[in-house]
């Protein structure tokens, strides 16, 4: 019984560390990538990977009680609204004409 709870604690620590590493990868990509569309791609790592891993780790850590239900609620809400707001930002940028990274520039650059 004690052994099982120790293993659950280890799993929750690993999930929390992996989730925070995902979050910092998303932030670093959102800072360093050169283009708006690639930054959009990097910011969704935080929305999907980091949130799910950290909330799952905290839920395993806290056992099964009201806190787990609140974590489940936050996870479901973020999992619905994260892609929705990301899609809204991408659609607004596409309509207003943020320029795409075009392949023609690369081809002409390679020829020159």
């Amino acid at each position, binding site marked *: 019984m004690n052994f099982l709870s120790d293993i659950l*604690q280890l799993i929750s*620590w690993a999930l*929390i*560390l992996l*989730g*925070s*590493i995902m*979050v*910092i990868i*998303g*932030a*670093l990509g*959102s*800072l360093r990538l050169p283009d*708006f569309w690639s*930054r*959009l791609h990097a*910011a969704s790592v*935080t*929305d999907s990977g*980091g*949130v799910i891993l*950290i*909330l799952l780790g*905290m839920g395993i*850590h*806290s056992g099964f009680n009201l*806190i787990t239900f*609140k*974590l489940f*609620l*936050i996870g479901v*809400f*973020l999992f619905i*609204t*994260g892609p*929705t*707001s*990301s899609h*809204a*930002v991408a659609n*607004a*940028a596409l*309509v*207003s004409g*943020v320029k795409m990274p075009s392949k023609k520039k690369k081809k002409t650059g390679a020829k020159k």
Partner: protein
Amino acid sequence: MMLAIPNFIFLVALILLFIAMVLVLIRLYKGPTLYDRVLSTNSFGTNTVLFIGVLGFLSDRPDFLDIALLYALINFVATIAILKFFRYRAIGDILIKRELKK
């Protein structure tokens, strides 16, 4: 000895989340277009939700999760409202302006 490790793990996660929030704020400051800023605002809100949750677990008061849920709700509404405002230059009365144009 075994009791000190969870606090250490939560502290490490808190520091990593704080560094991620600072990086997103730098992109928010120097983003060239508007949509970079909206995107980093959204990402900053998600990081804030996780930060408040981990802070509550670190200080053994997980009641902070209510505040985290509230932040998630406000963040989504704020992103959609900012995008709608910069699309139509108005939040409330879009239909009236269209009718006036016709």
